[in-house]
């Protein structure tokens, strides 16, 4: 019996029939909805192991998770199942994967590959400079703090909701500054570009731009990632969902997204509903026989 056969038989033995159905499903889009504790992480992990055992090159698998911790834990489990080649899987958070890609293509977007990634304090410092450039005496007028401006701009970029509307909805008492804030937004964008610096949101936005504006790049990576898996899909925001959609549109929609429960649009966390062409092909009941 071949090693692959042995691996596959082992995977099947360790899963319940519902899980096995999801793990061994054929090509095409798959949405796995599972209750908490029903082993959805297990499904993603075993799916990756199954694909490798089927002969898919690990470097052609993209597995996106919500934390680096999750990515590492899942990949080490895949490694335990099918061996060290699992390390070549592209795994990580959206930001980490975005950064890895952008280091190679930054020049297409007017950046240099040695760009700086700004942490929150750096972002506030940049924004403070932009506010000063607008001639706003921060100590004299009641202007939103750089930290709040950062949050408003970030929310707007992640949801696609324009800045004035974000103010109107969540910070109406600052609405009088809407025009100034839009200009600050523009200044902040220019300033980051000339400083060769990206904030967290840029790692997603620029990744999306790269795929949208450079068809040869999206073709390349769409084809490279023969299989895309996204964990905690209910928590992806609009940008992340668009990135996934774009990549999946180029790989024959070989995508598996795993979600806890479908969640409606909740404005507070910078998430938004999105349309997904993934269709349910497997549903796991709550608390099935998997162990956690």
């Amino acid at each position: 019996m071949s090693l692959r056969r042995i691996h596959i038989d082992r995977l099947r033995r360790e899963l319940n029939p519902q899980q096995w159905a999801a793990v061994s499903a054929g090509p095409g889009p798959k949405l796995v909805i599972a209750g908490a504790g029903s082993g959805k992480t297990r499904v993603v992990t075993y799916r990756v192991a199954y694909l490798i055992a089927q002969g898919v090159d690990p470097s052609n698998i993209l597995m996106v998770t919500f934390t680096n911790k999750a990515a590492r834990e899942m990949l080490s489990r895949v490694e335990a199942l099918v061996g060290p080649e699992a390390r070549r899987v592209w795994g990580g958070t959206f930001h980490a994967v975005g950064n890895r890609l952008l280091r190679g293509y930054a020049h297409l977007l007017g950046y240099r590959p040695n760009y700086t990634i700004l942490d929150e304090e750096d972002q506030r410092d940049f924004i403070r400079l932009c506010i000063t450039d607008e001639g706003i005496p921060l100590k004299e007028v009641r202007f939103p703090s750089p930290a709040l401006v950062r949050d408003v701009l970030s929310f707007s970029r992640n949801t696609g909701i324009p800045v004035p509307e974000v103010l109107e909805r969540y910070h109406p008492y600052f609405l009088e500054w809407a025009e100034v804030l839009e200009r600050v937004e523009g200044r902040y964008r220019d300033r980051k570009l000339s400083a060769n610096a990206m904030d967290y949101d840029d790692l997603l936005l620029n990744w999306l731009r790269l795929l949208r504006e450079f068809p040869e790049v999206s073709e390349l990576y769409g084809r490279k990632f023969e299989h895309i898996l996204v964990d905690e899909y209910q928590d992806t925001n609009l940008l992340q969902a668009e990135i996934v959609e774009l990549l999946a549109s180029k790989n024959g929609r070989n995508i598996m997204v795993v979600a806890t429960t479908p969640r409606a649009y909740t404005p507070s966390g910078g998430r938004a509903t999105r349309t997904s062409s993934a269709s349910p092909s497997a549903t796991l009941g709550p608390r099935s026989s998997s162990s956690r």
Partner: protein
Amino acid sequence: MRPTRPDGPKPFLVPVRDVYEEARFVVGRALELRDEGVPLNRIGVLYRAHSHSMVLQGELARRGIPYEVRSGLRFFEQAHVKDVLAYLRVVHNPYDEVAWRRVLLMIPGIGNMRAARIWERIRGSSDPLDELEEAGDFLPSYVLPSWRRFVEDVKALREAQSPGESVEIVLSSDYRDYLRTTYDDPESRLEDLYQLAVLAGQYGSVEEFLTQLVLLGELYGGDLRPDLRDPERLVLSSVHQAKGLEWWAVFVLRVVEGAFPSPMSLREDEGEEEERRAFYVATTRAQQELYLLYPITDYTPSGSAVLMGPSRFIRELDEDLYQVVRSEEMTG
């Protein structure tokens, strides 16, 4: 009063090769315990000085394990750490405006106006670092010596072969004086920065070092999603802030001469007694398992190894009170 809890295993004394192995041991054993059902938030890591937690924080960040620090700001968020990283940043990405501002304002005689003028002069250049010397030619003569020294430091940073060496260059520059005159408690901050150099020694390039610190230091995107903050976090605390707290398992780092007892407090009267009480606190926080770590070597910022002896508080203990384990016996 008597202890009411049934006996757990005897405390473990764990000699480890160096501070990296110390960090790996703690992380490895903590993950095993977690696997056995002890959540991370019931595991405490204690140390005598905040700087002792640095290499461990680096290892936790690298492996994406959530943790919280009870002994002050998270290491990478502290002003003096960001100062040093700003030097590395301007050399890695010479267009990094915010890092330039931070670096320029640390030079004596340079304030907002002059910093802005220098930035204006170099920002448009194809290589701002090459323009640096000339960009300062308008400075008054009393500022020029420190400006020239800064330019020399930048030159040295450009030639540095590793992130560890880069941090070391900053630490031997005028930044030392800045730190001493700007911050309270400069000696312990300096100690932090030596640890930063040790931590940097683990990374292959400045880019990798900077990226990992900002991207892996936290569940990033965590700022967007506070609900994702994992409540299950390993607890890092100074011994002093651990008074009255307990964990299922406790690791005490750097139980060596030169670290615990703290050399600074030994200089004071009654200092040793004070330290012995702190050691008592550290060793009575564990409900089940206590690990005393004893790194045999430490590194100076320049990378040379220094041999360390076990703490006097261990040497004065009856050997029946603890069991010695080699780190490889516990984690593979």
